[in-house]
């Protein structure tokens, strides 16, 4: 169905190919997972499958790529429109029209479907993807999960036999994400479609995959999931534990690992050492705080205290009020009722220059905080803004990312590097409160480990840190305390270990594996295995 033969891709102006000499073929009617670190060229690989690379992006492709019998050398994206459906990472950036119905029929109109054929496809695909109740809705009013379903439906309408998805679940909460993944499984099993999907959080999709393509260090490797997990640098926590404990055959899922659990328990102490929550010094406060958007209560009488030296993991489905909460603490959102104090002052009333010394927020897209034409200039202007000694921000950045050229443009950095630059800019003023909104979106495992270390360092220095995220494995790794929100209300607040291990069905894999023992992360289990007799 999809065949790569000795393929190398080099973008214009680049010294080296993104990756080279890729040869593999993907069988039809199966689910294929693409994994690899950020910036390794996963999107380039996916882009080749409908001619987006090189016809739209430019660059040189050597070797041959054949998709459904058509050569990418002679066919551009529009020639693949009837064969390959494409879904982008951010579904909204791929929307072309204003309403759901217009969006759904768009590809069919371009391909000259008759009106009856369009109606037929709308009925079938619309019902199947549960978007038939949304036809009249403006796209702008859809929730994240709905938008992703509409984007997938729009890609399927013209009846392609291949769907290519670039991290389709990265912006979704766990429920919406599993809904989208269930849909993909149905496409493969019931409709015999070929699904090619890239994903950072491998634990979500590994059990669905027939084959795994690893893009790493300029090489492309393709094979069965079990073999792939032996060699990939990006693996789910359960595989990480399995590799450290040399389990054979290597289990890929929690269910497959169950037979090894008893042997593992023997090697572990009763429970990990857990420091008690630090409650001594409050750095920020919400008291009976409410925010309403029209009829919707984004925050409903929330009372919350953030303490110095803690990392608070803020979790909950989309629309639970997490971003609003961060917005209130950082003086971007006004409270309807209640009070908010950060370092003894109401953040809404603070001048921008005063605000940054008390609270720092890294938005979901950290690039928004960066405007300068180079990393060095960004650091210098941050010093000026904060009234800091020259070189302060650059020194922070060097701590987070020692080897980045200061002459590079912030937009050319990887997601992880950009996040570190934004962190350096914010941390330079050493605000006692640090807020991060979905920081792991688009980060690979290596970058996540790095971010976790940075956050632990700041907490040790006495900052109160709030991380809002859907990424339960990351929260398990960094958070000492976890707050669970739903529809504007705090529904759970306590030790991360307690809250996360009861958060069915989206518990961390290690918690699922070792429950009722209170282990949470692969890191702590592997460390404990090493010390046990």
């Amino acid at each position, binding site marked *: 169905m999809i065949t790569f033969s000795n393929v190398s891709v080099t973008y214009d102006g680049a010294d080296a190919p993104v990756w080279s000499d890729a040869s593999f073929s993907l069988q039809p009617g199966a689910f294929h997972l693409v994994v690899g670190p950020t910036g390794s060229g996963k999107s380039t690989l996916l882009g080749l499958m409908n001619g987006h690379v090189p016809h739209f992006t430019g660059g040189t492709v050597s070797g041959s790529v054949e998709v459904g019998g058509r050569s990418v050398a002679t066919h551009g994206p*529009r020639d693949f429109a009837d064969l390959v459906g494409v879904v982008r990472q951010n579904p909204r950036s791929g929307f*072309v029209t204003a309403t759901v119905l217009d969006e759904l029929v768009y590809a069919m109109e371009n391909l000259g479907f008759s009106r009856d054929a369009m109606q037929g496809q709308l009925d079938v695909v619309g019902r199947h993807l549960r978007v038939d109740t949304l036809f009249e809705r403006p796209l702008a009013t859809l929730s994240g999960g709905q938008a992703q379903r509409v984007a997938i439906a729009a890609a399927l309408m013209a009846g392609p036999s291949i769907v290519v998805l670039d991290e389709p679940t990265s912006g979704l909460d766990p429920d919406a994400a599993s809904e989208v993944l269930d849909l993909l499984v149905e496409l493969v099993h019931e409709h015999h479609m070929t699904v090619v999907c890239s994903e950072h959080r491998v634990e979500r999709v590994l059990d669905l995959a027939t084959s795994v393509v690893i893009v790493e260090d300029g090489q492309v490797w393709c094979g069965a999931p079990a073999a792939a997990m032996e060699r990939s640098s990006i693996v789910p926590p359960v595989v990480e534990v399995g590799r450290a404990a040399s389990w054979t055959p290597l289990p890929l899922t929690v269910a497959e690992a169950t037979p090894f659990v008893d042997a593992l328990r023997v090697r572990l102490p009763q429970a990990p050492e857990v420091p008690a929550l630090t409650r001594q010094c409050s750095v920020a406060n919400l008291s009976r705080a409410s925010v309403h958007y029209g009829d919707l209560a984004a925050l409903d009488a929330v009372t919350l205290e953030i303490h110095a030296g803690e990392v608070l993991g803020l979790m909950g489905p989309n629309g639970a009020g997490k971003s609003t909460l961060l917005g209130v603490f950082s003086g971007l959102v006004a409270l309807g009722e209640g009070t908010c104090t950060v370092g003894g002052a109401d953040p809404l009333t603070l001048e921008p220059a005063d605000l940054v010394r008390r609270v720092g927020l890294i938005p979901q897209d950290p690039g*928004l905080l960066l405007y300068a034409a180079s990393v060095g200039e960004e650091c210098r202007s941050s010093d000026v803004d904060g009234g800091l000694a020259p070189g302060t921000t650059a020194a922070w950045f060097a701590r987070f990312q020692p080897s980045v050229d200061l002459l590079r443009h912030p937009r050319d950095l990887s997601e992880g590097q950009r996040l570190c630059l934004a962190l350096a800019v914010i941390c330079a003023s050493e605000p006692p409160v640090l807020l991060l909104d979905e920081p792991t979106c688009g980060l690979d495992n290596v970058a996540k480990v790095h971010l976790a270390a940075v956050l632990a360092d700041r907490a040790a220095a006495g900052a109160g840190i709030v991380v809002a995220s859907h990424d339960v494995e990351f929260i398990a790794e960094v958070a000492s305390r976890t707050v669970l929100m739903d529809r504007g209300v705090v529904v759970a607040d306590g030790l991360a270990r307690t809250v996360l291990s009861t958060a069915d069905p989206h518990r961390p894999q290690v918690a699922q594996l070792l429950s009722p023992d209170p282990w949470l992360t692969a890191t702590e289990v592997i460390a404990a295995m090493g010390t046990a007799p």
Partner: protein
Amino acid sequence: MTAQQQMHPGAWWCWGLLTAVGLSGVTNPLLSASVLAALAVVVSARSATASSRAFSLSLRLGVMLLVVRLFIAVAFGARTGGTVLWSVPSVPLPSWFAGITIGGPVTAPLLLGALYQGLNLAAVLACFGAASTLAPPAELVAALPRSVYELGLSVAIALAFLPELSESAQAVRAARRLRGRPTSGLAGFRGMAIPVLEGALERSVAMAAAMDARGFGRLRSGGDHPRAVPVLAMAGAASVTVGAVGLLAGGVATAVGTALLLSGVMAAGWSLRIRSAQLLRTRFTQVPFGWRASVIAGAGACSLVLLFALDRWAPLLVASPTSGGSPSFGIATALLVALVLAPLAVARGGAQA
């Protein structure tokens, strides 16, 4: 279902644009004000639930233009006779600045003239605002014949760019506050312009890629665009431009100009025909241009004819305070208001659902 299925969007644009063309240059303030009122009635009656943001935006812009026009008149207006209301200190200019004055006595005719012109501008703007509220530009583009669809689409993308830009601006504004930077004033604007534009540009590129991946502009099986299409289209456009400029500026003989204009239109039309026959594109929601649509478009055409006729035979309507005569609200104005309100009689339903 949607308003689009009830009424061809072209009808509302004919109605709005033709009225706007007729209105331009008509400085009777009573006429401008009555048209403004009539437009507001139609918009509020027809878009009870839909957003009338475009219309209110056009009204605000109109008020701004009016204020600017008055300011220019007071500051730089040519001084004529009449009752002096008050005086602005005048700046003596060297003699080679002939024709330009700064300051001086402010007279009633000076102020009234500016007011009338400003009102007229506001009314013309409101016509556009009303049309784009009643039939969003995206709907208009979708209803275009497929040969000019690509052309219209670039306009639609440009229009969609604006809300995108304002969203991007809000995000950047919030981010600047987070970095402790000014969000207002010149410094604020300078720091925001680049990231806002960058964000909107990235979005446009993503949109183009998405359109490409979903078969936009795909041709019937077999081949590429024939070379003749761009050549014909370019030649046509050039010929129309030269012809029109020649005729308007009087640089070429009328016969030559007309011939150029006509041949240009024909060449462009021919290229569109070839293109149209080659494109695969079909439409899901085809809105027929029914009798109701014809009535609405016809009302616009009648307004245009009426205003042209008045301009020619009843110049009192365009009376300016300097040439004497006071604005009148005659039977013609009443007729015009009736024409602007005419769509209400035929447009189905009270509100767009």
